[in-house]
């Protein structure tokens, strides 16, 4: 019989994320599952290999909190603001192993992992010094043109955490707006934790199967976590909290300062609900957009 997949974030992280795991918290700017990262910090997971094209603030916080052994990435910065200071410091001090690719390379690695192909070919990396410092970037010869084509190896996380706007209780999920690498990261992983702004009735998801990028079939846990992505955003739910991204520059300049921030906003709360209780209402309200609905489409009923 079908197992109940709906559970708390605490239970999902506790059961599905293990010390030493390779984890992928997905999201290109959009839908980054901050609440899940904070739960991983609270549960003091250790020796994780953190993978994502754009590590963003959440990986910076996880590195600062001592969760990570290694970072696999393509661009480690605070978009539009500056650097990720904890990550940069850990790398410069040799405390964090890194493995880096290009953006296309990272997404190609996920494509390979998601489709169970050991490698993926891409026209990039040629002439760059990246292959000289990352021996996992290799080459094949095209059997039609004789050209040398760079390839990257499949990335298969032990667990991927994917945040979505809405899902049903089985884990069938609708995502819209920037869809980044969510689908590929989900299919590439052995285990999938799905966090959703809303768990909705089955018929809402079933009304638009083309929008179901993540099928329940590959999902192990479904967790309803409103505002899971803050300070990242959820298109149609809340805006990106750019102000926080700018403030983080100050917060993270001094490790002690960041440590205090973690005490207050991560260790000092039990879950995202308590985190949201601490945020001032006006800040949250300022992140509400105006409604802008898609025109529906007619799937028809043919009997």
């Amino acid at each position, binding site marked *: 019989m079908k197992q109940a997949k709906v559970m708390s974030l605490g239970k999902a992280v506790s059961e599905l994320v293990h010390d030493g795991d390779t984890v992928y918290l997905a999201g290109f700017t959009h839908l980054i599952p901050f609440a899940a990262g904070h739960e991983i910090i609270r549960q003091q997971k250790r020796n994780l290999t953190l993978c994502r094209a754009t590590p963003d603030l959440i990986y910076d916080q996880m590195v600062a909190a001592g969760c990570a052994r290694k970072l696999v990435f393509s661009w*480690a910065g605070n978009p539009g603001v500056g650097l990720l200071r904890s990550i940069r410091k850990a790398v410069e001090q040799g405390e964090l192993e890194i493995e880096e690719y290009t953006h296309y390379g990272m997404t190609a690695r996920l494509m390979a992992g998601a489709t169970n192909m050991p490698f993926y070919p891409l026209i990039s990396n040629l002439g760059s010094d990246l292959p000289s410092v990352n021996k996992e970037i290799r080459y094949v010869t095209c059997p039609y043109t004789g050209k040398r084509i760079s390839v990257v190896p499949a990335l298969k996380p032990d667990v991927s955490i994917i945040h979505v706007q809405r899902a049903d209780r089985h884990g069938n999920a609708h995502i819209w707006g*920037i869809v980044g690498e969510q689908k590929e990261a989900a299919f590439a992983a052995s285990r999938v934790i799905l966090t959703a702004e809303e768990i909705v009735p089955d018929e809402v998801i079933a009304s638009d199967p083309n929008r179901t990028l993540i099928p329940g079939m590959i999902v192990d846990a479904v967790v309803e976590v409103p505002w899971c992505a803050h300070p990242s955003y959820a298109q149609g739910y809340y805006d990106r909290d750019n102000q926080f991204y700018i403030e983080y520059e100050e917060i993270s300049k001094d490790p002690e300062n960041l440590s205090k921030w973690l005490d207050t906003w991560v260790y000092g709360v039990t879950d995202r609900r308590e985190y949201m209780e601490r945020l001032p209402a006006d800040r949250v309200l300022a992140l509400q957009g105006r409604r802008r609905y898609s025109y529906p489409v007619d799937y028809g009923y043919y009997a």
Partner: protein
Amino acid sequence: MNYTSAEMMVVTAARMLKNGDRVFVGIGMPNLAVNLAKRLHAPDVHMIFEAGVIGAKPSRLPLSIGDPCLVTGAGSVCSMFDVFAFYLQRGLIDIGFLGAAQVDRFGNLNSTVIGSYERPKARLAGSGGACDIACLAKKVFVLIPHEKRRLPEKVDFITSPGFLGGRAERSSLGLEGGPDTVITNKGVLRYDETGEMILTSIHPGVTVDEVLASTGWALKVSSTLEITPEPNDEELRILREELDPTGVYLGGAVV
């Protein structure tokens, strides 16, 4: 006329865009340049973001490349894989804008480390899509402050290939396209037939000696060196009133 270096750079970049160009664009000055061109001579320029947004019509100035304002009302939104594979590698991108910590004599770009890779003096953000764009866009435009340490003879690390040691070396790898134009706060640089950078234009008030002194090698100067035309009133009005009213990118000196 009164304008900042950043405004000069943005206006110069905007004028180089042709109507219909498909531009892979980042945040900041490139974003302003494309939006300025769209409001003037090139209304049908396509803005493509590596976040997977095609034909963005932003209602505000985005801080990040994945801002929600880029999505609403856009032409199309696809996955990150798709934007690299179906657009960039497919050959649909005419111009890619890149920034970097360093650009060298042959247009190679560094955004990875200053110093050695293993023991960096400074660890930078890394390639992101830059290496991919440098391999695959038909033309690469670079916007960069003109300083000796940022225009060294050879970059510390080739994140993104320009002409490598010259046009022939790039071609031998099967790569087409490549470096086209560098716009700094002092002038405009292009590439000669060997793939070496050459100064083709200096901004008003800048001297050639000043440019040479700010470049890390003996920079070639075009025999037909021009003075870059200044921003006009309409360009400045659009930039200041419509595109960056709070002066985030254009307010002070070069970003």
